């Protein structure tokens, strides 16, 4: 979605217009629309997160950008050139999804090969390979054949090979997948470091926390269509849209309050309640939970608790999280999303 507030400058590193991909499968020539006419831009120097649930079309889009598959229709311009342009490719680094590399090579040999493809001379290749393997925490295994590598180690080699040509644009397909918590943090730091050095990072993920911490802007793709593009702050509504109350009290009060505040839609709460969970009251080990949808309701509920001889443990105002935005856009329940 082109945004009117920012001028369309030449600073766009990646421009995608109406990109579409239909897969044709089997003898019956059944069609799957993997990417259904998406358009957006990634600007120079930003970290752009490409978010979407499994099967949304993230990998397919990235493969089209990398020339691995041909789009059914639409236009792409990367670094001002069409897909496959050699000069542009020299300035791009790419990490494929679930990377797998030549398992008979050592990581060092592989990075040397990649360096040659980028046209680096031997000494530069050796230096950069050493530095990058150190950076991704593989220096202890660098002279072992990659056959013996674990999934996370392959992912790390993948990051190193993507950076071998010191690219201006880094395209990473799920860079954190398969990594342990420390590895994830290292990758986040790596991506922020890239941005600091003026590089552009375009990465896909379905882990919202990662996007939350890293992205200048995100694009949300669901079932092949782009639902939202923009700064996270813009996409997330800033106002408090519900308040969680944790309280304790006798059984009788519980029943009383369940009746008094049963799904009753206050004025102003109607809109918010639409996508809220049906259950406003929940019993947990730590006490009773109640979800209020307006300030007035909170006040009345608290008063009722105190009047009935209960005790308020905690009152937490909730802003919309990225997860909720994602779920709202995806039209899927949050529980199904978590993996």
């Amino acid at each position, binding site marked *: 979605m082109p945004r009117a507030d920012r001028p369309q400058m030449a600073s766009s590193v990646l421009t995608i217009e109406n990109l579409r991909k239909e897969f044709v499968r*089997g003898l019956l020539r059944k069609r799957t629309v993997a990417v259904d006419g998406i358009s957006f831009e990634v600007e120079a120097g930003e970290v752009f997160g490409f978010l979407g649930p499994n099967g949304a079309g993230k990998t397919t889009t990235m493969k089209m950008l990398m020339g691995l598959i041909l789009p059914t229709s639409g236009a792409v311009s990367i670094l001002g050139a069409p897909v496959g342009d050699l000069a542009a490719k020299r300035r791009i680094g*790419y990490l494929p999804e679930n990377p797998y590399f030549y398992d008979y090579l050592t990581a060092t040999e592989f990075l040397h090969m990649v360096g040659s493809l980028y046209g680096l001379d031997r000494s530069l290749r050796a230096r950069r390979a050493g530095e990058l393997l150190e950076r991704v925490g593989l220096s202890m295994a660098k002279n072992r054949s990659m056959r013996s590598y674990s999934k996370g180690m392959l992912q790390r080699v993948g990051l190193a090979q993507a950076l071998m040509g010191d690219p201006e644009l880094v395209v990473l397909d799920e860079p954190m997948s398969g990594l342990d918590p420390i590895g994830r943090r290292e990758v986040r730091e790596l991506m922020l470091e890239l941005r600091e050095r003026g590089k552009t990072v375009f990465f896909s993920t379905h882990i919202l926390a990662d996007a939350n911490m890293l992205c200048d802007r995100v694009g949300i793709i669901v079932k092949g269509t782009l639902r939202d593009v923009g700064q996270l702050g813009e996409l997330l509504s800033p106002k408090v849209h519900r308040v969680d109350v944790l309280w304790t009290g006798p059984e009788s009060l519980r029943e009383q309050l369940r009746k008094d505040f049963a799904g009753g839609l206050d004025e102003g709460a109607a809109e918010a309640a639409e996508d809220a969970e049906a259950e406003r009251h929940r019993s947990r080990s730590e006490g009773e939970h109640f979800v209020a949808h307006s300030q007035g309701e909170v006040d009345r509920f608290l008063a009722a608790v105190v009047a009935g001889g209960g005790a308020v443990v905690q009152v937490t105002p909730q802003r919309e999280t990225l997860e909720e935005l994602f779920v709202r856009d995806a039209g899927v329940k949050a529980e199904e999303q978590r993996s």
Partner: protein
Amino acid sequence: MEVIVGSVERMWAIALNTFREAVRNKVLAILVLFAVALMAFSLVLGQLSLHEEIRIIKDLGLAGISIFGVIIALFLGVNLLSKELDRKTVYAIIPKPLHRWEFLLGKYLGMVVTMTALVALMSLVLMAFLAVQGGRHGVTMVRAEILIWLELLLLMAVAMLFSSFSSPWLSAMMAAGLWVIGRNSAELEAFAGSPKLEDSFGGDLLGFILEVVPDFRMFYVSGANFDEAVVSVHESFVSWGYVASAGAYCLAYAAFAWRWRSSPSPRDFT
């Protein structure tokens, strides 16, 4: 000029990788061992025959290089490309700054380097066995080995061509079939031209197939023919132009098939 140097360097990087893959492959090592074992067996056979030791070693040795060479050529040609697709190692390579045809040619170049090394190795072993028996390797033998080598290079290109659009087993069978037809093209040609088949659909089809199939007979070394005399069945040693053009055709077709594979089709490049 710089453009060409860059291109050659990239192809060489791919070729070196392919060579490493082949050399570090156990199946290949076993095949080479078998070829050597066959040559060793010829020493024993030579002992059994009267005054024919040298000829038997030469015959069996060349046959060993040829037979195992064909198996290795099919193995390499069919495997090295399709493995890249199956294991998805291409995903990391195609987006790198190189052309697709450079990748393909680099792969082939790597196979050529591998095959050259293997034929040279087997020839050296044969030479050693001959020396043990007091025989001479000689120019004729070298010529015979060069013919075998060229045939193998062409067969590899054919195998690679098939593997760029079909499964390894099928490709190997098709390439092997083509090789058999190519080796017997003279007989088949005579058959197609025979009164029985003349002007029939079958005859035309056979004629067409013979037009398309590379003429592997060009490289045929018959055992009787190389006693310090003619190596090739032709007067000239070998038709280099033919080898070059046949190889180029195969690679061009492979490049085309490769392109097709990456287009929106059932065999999408995914």
